[in-house]
């Protein structure tokens, strides 16, 4: 009803499809990593639509980067909390991964 342009989801699929040759020539493990990147970008389709960028791939790439960065922050926090405990104690339950008060509380 009056919609002319393809939806952002359709456009996203088109863009993903346009990289199919590139994907094909990658190793299988790399293909899966690439798929992860595209999946990550799908978290921000609404914002990409709102952005109304005539070259939406730029926004999709930025979304991928955004998700990667969030993962980096999360891992950084996780690593810091593990290193923050003097002895290397493997977390057996998730609670152990949360830092208590600081290095002194490590066993």
């Amino acid at each position, binding site marked *: 009803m*009056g919609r002319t342009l393809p939806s952002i989801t359709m456009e996203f699929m088109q863009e993903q499809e346009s990289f199919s040759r590139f994907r094909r020539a990658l190793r299988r493990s790399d293909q899966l990593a690439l798929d992860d990147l595209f999946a990550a970008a799908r978290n921000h389709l*609404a914002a990409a639509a709102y952005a109304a960028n005539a070259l939406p791939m730029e926004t999709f790439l930025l979304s991928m980067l955004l998700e990667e960065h969030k993962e980096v922050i999360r891992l950084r926090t996780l690593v810091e909390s593990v290193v923050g405990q003097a002895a290397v104690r493997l977390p057996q339950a998730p609670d152990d991964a949360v830092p208590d008060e600081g290095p002194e509380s490590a066993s």
Partner: protein
Amino acid sequence: MTREFSGWLLDLFDDARDGVVLWFLTRDGERIRLHQPFPITFSAAGPAQELRAAWHWLRQQPEEIKLARTQGHDLFVSGPVTLLSVEVASAAAQPRLFQRMSEAFPDLTYYDADVNLALRFAAVYNTFPLAHCRVSCSDDGLVESLEGLDSPWDLDPEPVPLRILTLEPDCDPQHAVPRVLRVSYEKFNYEFKMDPIRPLLINLRGLLERFDPDILLSTWGDTWLLPLLLEESEHHNLPLPLNREPNRGVIHRKEKSYFSYGVIVYHGQQIHLYGRCHIDRRNSSLWGPDGLDGILESARLTALPMQTAARTSPGTGISSMQILTAMRGGTLVPWHKQQVERPKSALDLLKYDQGGMVYQPITGVHTNVAEIDFISMYPSIMVRCNISPEKPVPTFLGSNEEPGLIPQTLAPLLKKRVTIKTELGKMKPWDPRYRRYQAASSAHKWLLVTCFGYLGYKNARFGRIESHEAVTTWGREALLLAKEAAEDMGFTVLHMYVDGLWVQQEGYERPEQFNPLLKEVADRTGLSIALDGVYRWVTFLPSRMNSKVPVPNRYFGFFQDGSFKMRGIDARRHDMPEFIVKTQMDMLAVLGQAATLPEIQARIPQVLGVLRSALYNLRTGRVPLDQLVMGQRLSRVLSAYKTPSPAARALMQLNEIGKDKRPGQRVRFLYVRTGCGVHAWDLPEKPDPLTIDVALYRKLLIRAAGTILQPFGWTDKRVQEWLAGGLNEELSTGIAIQLEKRESVLI
């Protein structure tokens, strides 16, 4: 001698001799037929030369007409338009005259040319079906004065003492030949054998004459019963007074299938009566649990005759309301939609050609989530921002101008909707008004939901694509403003979908705690917003294909009051067999009692138990066949299928016994292991229960179960493995946590 009475308007139609015929139900219980002259005026605009030629042509036409040169107001033209105005003395003659004129002079622009008679009458006298009126008339039934006493916006109109005759066969005619017709009127109940039909006709005629009903309420009356009765009545030469109006045949509208926005739509044939109203429960878009009340409300609001209101699309309803507003306000009603889009740059198209804002959710299970929804968002925006084809596109969430045609039409409807909804919220279910208010509320929703789409519809007389786009633009803005308000107040926005948000904050559980948020959103947007409820828990589902991809509007959950809500799952759920839907609901009911994640996980074994017993019943043939019936719509005619779908194969079986279905209709069938894999449900014999394709139903059931279990860490594969593993397998009842925002994992 003049007679005066007050009563309700039952029916209205044109008559070649009497002008307009009006049937009234008086307060004293009398059904009275009146008439009055009602000339119809339509007009044409165009180059002066052509108008002169048209004038000459009209002078030579046989119909009794008065011509005049006038001016009028076209919504889309500033300044008056010069018109050739044609007043036709006989209402019945106008349509044919107009048809001939438009063929002779196709280039003129016509106004007020093809408007339903009921609407024209309503525009002058403020009437509508079952309007309460004060009437004075002469001895020979000529109306002298007519005054409408009530308004469609009244909340509690006086109930009209209608006489309703109900007709219902003892089974679905598509399925088997009915043997008995059940007829009831008030406390009288009759059963007539369908065969032989002669006594049935005689008895029916007797009942019609004795009870003189106002409404014939049938089941399958349009598609089966009435056509059959009419045919037999002619065959046996036994006149059947279905009409109250003497000397008239009934109106017989043919069935049709047509293509609309990528989908095939099917309309069954229709039988309309004169002086009496025929409503077919199975052929009415409005027939729900609220029955007749919904239809009556729709007729009140749109001024369309009850028989039309019962069968028409909401688009026609909205259009009628717009036409009424236009005619009452002195605006001309165009025949065709002429307006084209103002040119815009490609970049602007990119910005405005979007739908509602659809946010990807944070998938997984969440507890204590509030769902807040804007109340009738698009209509409210249309009213608040004064979105109308003749008004400039709004530049902010409001307007400084006089209300345009669309807001004028919608505002009272919106007001009534909000009032009724609020009252319903306070009312107890046993209140005598409850059912009627529910029905009215459905009718309002039905109309309001369409008005936005209609604004962008290519054939809408008062539509305009820029207005349509403005509505979505401000809808997106409102949603973003709401998101900002929520985040400013410390909430996490889990999901947003066009007019609703799902928000969560640690420590916020009770409904009252969300009131400040509601107020803040209402302040920032100027639109009404309400709390739909607080979920004990809700899960947003990812894509079936890839669990890392979030999917909008796909979730299920239980509110604190125990009620359940589900969207986007098994989209064709009403086509699924009852057995599968019921099992799914039984599984969900177990989960519904839980309030926290650990409680949910603790219940999983029980849920799996429900699945296991359902599978057992299926395997041992304990599931009744009617609970395994699948439905599927036919998307095209049989010959157009390259490989026949299950529905097509079932249709072929039906064709062999002389039954047929049109594209757009649903075919029901069972999956069997023999023959072509399906057995049409409407065949006279049922299949041998041993031939049921148990494996296929098992697959469907597990898939349906998988949808419920997947958020809790159970993939289809794992379910299969558990089922194969036997009763002794232990289930690890660990705690599901959210390691990071994209997954929930069972450990």
